[in-house]
């Protein structure tokens, strides 16, 4: 860890200004000199590891009263970026109308972390790639652009099989983002020029040739809220992992269905633990629409979801695993009592 200044932002303008002033214009956000501090569960960790080296920390927790809404309403849901994971997971209406959100949060991290971590910070969580997190490895295109990728031919059991490039195969590690992308969430971003909204699906950027650029956020911008239209009571989050709690997904699926009289009117399939970014399997969804569910269809959907997957030495198992998870999660969603 290196020395940094610390200031508390008492209102959004002050936060945005503090983050903007210290930000060097041409840096990717992850290397910006000023970083916002919410729950701190990723930032502090990466600072201790010397991966992130901000010189200014802007504590945005004072914004919590305004930015912590958990507001399910008639036409949808609004979640403040500073709402705690544990509070959202425990909210009765979220559990009833958005089980995929409640479960994705409940199955993430540990109780202690969920009590600290915020929704906004959660979606910005950075990869757990060991080679990224250990600065003694020089070759990490995400950390040192152009230096190569140690994970490509290294120990890559946890790495991605979808959305990879020849520059980076680091997995997006979170769970909640899969629920957001499945439900077509919008993300509200507060910056110098006020607030703007964009589809959550456009927030994260696949690594391509610039794995150091992870999101569409600019230095000086903050996620202030998420919003979702409609209710999704028929939705599930299924997660496979090495231990029963407090572990990242080897593979997960966020499924949301709208089933009327046995026919699937709308279907959402998102994948976690297998992709470089929160991953929406739209081709797979298309196969479901207007269909009646059966096992063969589930299998076709699962195959479609992983049609473009590319495994490497230790992670090829994720393709077959991911397909089984998609098929099983679909079945759970179809048969769930709502």
């Amino acid at each position: 860890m290196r020395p940094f200044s610390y200031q508390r932002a008492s209102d959004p303008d002050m936060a945005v200004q503090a983050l903007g002033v210290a930000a060097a214009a041409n840096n990717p956000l992850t290397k910006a000199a000023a970083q916002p501090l919410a729950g701190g569960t990723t930032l502090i960790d990466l600072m201790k590891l010397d991966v992130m080296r901000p010189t200014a920390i802007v504590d945005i927790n004072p914004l919590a009263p305004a930015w912590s809404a958990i507001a399910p309403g008639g036409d949808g849901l609004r979640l403040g970026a500073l709402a705690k994971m544990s509070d959202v997971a425990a909210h009765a209406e979220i559990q009833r109308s958005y089980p995929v959100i409640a479960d994705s949060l409940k199955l993430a991290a540990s109780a202690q972390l969920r009590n600290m971590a915020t929704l906004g910070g959660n979606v910005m969580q950075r990869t757990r790639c060991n080679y990224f997190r250990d600065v003694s490895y020089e070759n990490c295109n995400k950390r040192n652009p152009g230096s190569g990728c140690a994970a490509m031919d290294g120990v890559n059991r946890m790495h991605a099989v979808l959305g990879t490039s020849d520059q980076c195969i680091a997995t997006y590690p979170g769970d909640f983002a899969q629920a957001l992308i499945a439900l077509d969430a919008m993300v509200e971003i507060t910056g110098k020029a006020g607030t703007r909204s964009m589809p959550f699906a456009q927030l994260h950027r696949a690594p391509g040739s610039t794995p150091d650029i992870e999101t569409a956020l600019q230095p000086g911008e903050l996620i202030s809220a998420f919003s979702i239209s409609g209710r999704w009571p028929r939705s599930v989050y299924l997660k496979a992992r090495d231990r029963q709690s407090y572990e990242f997904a080897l593979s997960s699926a966020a499924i949301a269905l709208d089933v009327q009289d046995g026919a699937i009117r709308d279907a959402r399939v998102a994948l976690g633990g297998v992709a470089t970014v929160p991953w929406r399997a739209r081709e797979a969804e298309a196969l479901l629409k207007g269909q009646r569910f059966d096992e063969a269809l589930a299998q076709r959907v699962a195959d479609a979801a992983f049609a473009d997957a590319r495994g490497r030495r230790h992670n090829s198992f994720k393709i077959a695993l991911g397909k089984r998870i998609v098929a099983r999660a679909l079945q759970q969603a179809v048969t769930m009592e709502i």
Partner: protein
Amino acid sequence: MTAAAPGPRTNMGQPVPRYDAAAKVTGRATYASDMPLDNPAYAFLVTSAIAKGRIDRFDLDDAKRVRGVIDIVTHENAPKLKESKLYSNGGYAGTTIQPLKSAEIAHDGQIIAVVVAESYEAAREAANRVKVSYSAAAPTATFDSPGTTTAAAKGQNSQFKEDPKVGDFAKAFDAAEVKLTASYETPTQHHNPLELFTTSCTWMGDNLVIYEGSQYVHGLKHGVAEQLGIDADKVRVVNPYVGGGFGSRGSMTPRTAIIAAMARRLNRPIKLVPTRDQGFTITTHRAETRHEIKLGASRDGRLVALRHEGAEVSSRPDAYCVGGTKTTTRLYACPNVDSLVSIVRADRNTPGFMRSPPEVPYLFALESALDELAVKLNMDPVELRRINDATRDPIDGKPYTSRSLMACFDEAAKAFGWSQRSPQPKSISDGDWLIGYGCAATCYPTLAGPSAARVRLQRDGRTRVEIAGHEIGTGAYTVIAQTAAERLGVPLEKVAVFMGDSDLPPAPVAGGSNSTASTCSAVMMVCDQIRQRLFKALMPSDSLADKAKETVGISPAPSTQAAKSDRSLDIEKAFDALGVGVVEEYGEWKPEGAPLDSFRAMHSGQVRLVGGHQMKDQIAYAFGAEFVEVRINRFTHEIRCPRLVGAFAGGRIMNPRTARSQLMGGLIWGMSSALLEATEIDERNARYVNDNLADYLVPVNADVPGVEVILLSEEDDRINPVGVKGLGELGNVGTNAAICNAIYHATGQRIRKLPVRLEDIEL
């Protein structure tokens, strides 16, 4: 009685709460890095990013500019230290790879620089700013990597004396009615005790005090003195509490003498708190192993031939091996046995003890193979073990001092509900989950070593016990206090125990599960010395003839007999008769068969453990049986272990509460070893990849919903005066195999490589 404190059965002490429970749960227990220091400087390590090669140069400019930096030590300016020999070669160290001696790098994460600063934060920041230029060479990582060299352990490791064999294995295996050949593999593992590998050193004139979590304060004291070239009596090691050892703190690591020498040069206390990932490379680990087992049996299940070949990875300079064939060749009655242990050298740090070092990997192989044989024979695996149960060591023909293996199997089987198991694989399921039951034997040699103790008794019953034992979380304070209270007949709350300080009378390393047997035998003996003085005062009637008989060894005097019996003592009356305020006794105890130099070695920080198969006329082991239920999700293939049941017999159980806790931890660790724990090695550069507790997985509470420990009554007066067999390393031995055997039962799939992960399951 609460679940945490099972009621005592025959030959068990009381399940009294831990002596140190309140101190620990309130945070008052002081671990090494909690010790106050006067104006300390803080050290932070820089470790190598390559596993082989040399350092071309350091660029320290940026680091030195960090405010508060006092000094940066590299091989170019490090204090010169004397070499320390391995503990197995009459020294104290766990490795002969001495960092900061030259530009050469011998393994990943070797200490290459130490930054000292006014604060921990400044030291860490400066360490991050140290730039190193290397000339890297291609390192050899592990088995199958180019550049390994392999040779038999015998002849290169002084502690591995013999590959056990008996009869004619080849002939018997050829002729066997049923044969099995199978290969097994275990991974690198790391201990990760909660307490980091901290060291604080402070000098007072020529005297050095070291605060460091150690499983052997007297060993560390002598080792550091040797490296510094000073008199050992000038060095004191203090650690009243150790935040987990598991073998990782059993022998000296290079960091201690480095920090001590730097503190001397700086003339200021230095405190080092390494990071978790540095702990993976600056101490030791359990090496990866490979095994081939050959079993030959008659159709009725009698073993006629057994061969165990093991291979273990070690460092280039040091021939470390655990050689578990000493146990696996003796566990079952078999007339024709052969074995071979080899050491494979690679560019790695020297491995070291990790709980049940030989038994964990070697019994995984044997107990898996036995299950495979049971399947071939269409026989219940418990019955296969019963048929081959031994009363004598099949290699040397010596009788077991006591052996309750089958009694353990029977009690555990009953508690587990084994009789309801259908032997067919894939025959039990529950919704999404396939269920399998498995079992395995567990065992650990009964060891003890020379130990001294000092006990002081006052007229009001207040008792002070001093012994340089180690509280590594096992309950050592508690059982020592119980021993003294019981022998002296004083209330437990009047006994104060002082341990973890090399100024106290030496006790052996807290390793090899010898501590309770050794320390309690010594304390019991010294308490009897006090009893003898008091009884003598009370029984002036010992006649001259009695005294003469005792002097020439014909028969003990009545007061001696009284002291050694369980006869109760009126302390106040005895003190009044004696006319003193305090009685204090010091004594040195050694187990039967201990070598002649035992006490001399004890005072030089060297251990002479005896027992196990190395006793003259007998062989002593603790036994147990472990049963597990695994569940495998038919969709995700996730493997969970909802039930672990173990029954154990360990001679006298001093305290059923602490014993249960220890064994419970062992069962959980065993499950962890089977399903979670592996240090991943990047073979391209021989570096550890998952060197942190987020990626080196250990179980969380949700992984262990059901753990049941059954303590059997067992009496064994042939092992040591307290009749104790070590339990510390008994719990985690059988679990690896029991889990793989259960996975076979659940799926029909035999997995021979640990840890078993969901991608290994094919349904």
